[in-house]
């Protein structure tokens, strides 16, 4: 149910190391905010769209993923057009669209485990000060992926239980038992983790 947004493939972006892509995305983000010419930004948006298309993602899925963010970009651009100038609007539209498309291209070509490796590396300085443990972060990510489907099933169960008793299904009437029943499992899960010696 909870699968990553990376798509399989063997394009140049797939083969590029995750770190290079993340650093590239960061540099592009800074660069895009330093430029204000609509023409340059328009060119950048076209390049970004090309990179996103080069990941081999199916067109319908490609649009579905960025649709919501691009609508907010469009609204912001429209506000700039209405209250300021067309040049400002185009600059904002192209700058943010380019950034969104580049980011989507990185997400589409980088696996969850490649991201986790980079996060482990970034946490290393914090780990040295004893602030956080990288192993804990990956354990927590694993726990969410493991238990989210179970919690969704429990939500359906609680709704069924309400219906079976002729009670109206109200959001709060379901949420409260869902939270209590889920958090009550914490002791058992923590015992199971400690018994296996995962955290030392």
């Amino acid at each position, binding site marked *: 149910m*909870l699968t990553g947004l990376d798509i399989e493939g063997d394009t140049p972006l797939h083969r590029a190391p995750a770190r290079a892509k993340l650093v590239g995305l960061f540099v592009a983000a800074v660069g895009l905010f330093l430029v204000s010419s609509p023409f340059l930004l328009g060119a950048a948006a076209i390049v970004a769209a090309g990179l996103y298309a080069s990941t081999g993602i199916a067109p319908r899925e490609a649009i579905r993923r960025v649709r919501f*963010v691009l609508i907010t970009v469009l609204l912001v651009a429209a506000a700039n057009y209405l209250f300021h100038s067309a040049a400002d609007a185009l600059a904002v539209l192209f700058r*943010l669209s380019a950034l969104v498309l580049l980011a989507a291209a990185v997400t589409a070509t980088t696996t969850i485990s490649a991201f986790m490796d980079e996060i482990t590396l970034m946490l290393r300085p914090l780990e040295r000060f004893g602030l956080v443990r990288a192993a804990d972060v990956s354990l*927590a990510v694993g726990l*969410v992926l493991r*238990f989210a489907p179970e919690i*969704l099933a429990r939500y359906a169960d609680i709704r069924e239980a309400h219906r079976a008793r002729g009670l109206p299904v109200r959001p709060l009437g379901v949420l409260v038992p869902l939270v209590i029943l889920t958090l009550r499992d914490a002791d058992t*899960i*923590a015992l199971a983790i400690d018994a296996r010696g995962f955290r030392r």
Partner: protein
Amino acid sequence: MSTRDLVLVALFAAIIVVLGMLPPITLGFIPVPITAQSLGVMLAGCTLGARRGASACLLVVLLVAIGLPVLSGGRGGLAVFAGPTAGYLVGWVAGALVTGLIAERLVREGQPQLQQYLGFFLAAAVGGIGVVYLLGIAWLSYMSGKAFVETTLASLVFIPGDLIKAVAAALAGRAVLAGYPLLPART
């Protein structure tokens, strides 16, 4: 952080993820549909307190960043952070932290019910709305170029829905406190 705390953080993050999978509710008198996900953020602070609540939200933000479609409507990935509304998402962490800090100070077990409701509502409104909007609007103004006043005003249409969520968080927070108390007390 003890193993139990770590598990509580992960389970609450999973609850927030599941809340994002439920269909949004539309109320007649508010123009925008309400998603339960930001209710989960307020509830994280009210239920787990500042440290664990903020950690749960940070975990959700991390899941979004590594490319899992865990936000409402199946959104996720780095593109979310590139959009103009990313500040609202990043603001969840600080929002849950402030919600927890206020709740830990105002709400105790054994207080009269009304006092607990009010304490949780105040915590959810200040943390879950005030702090989240502060970061969300700051980011939005930066991203929207010259039209920042207009875009800021436009984002206020979401306030009524969020106030309803703060009420819901207060009701649910008190019920969870009565059924399975986890909120640490602070003086």
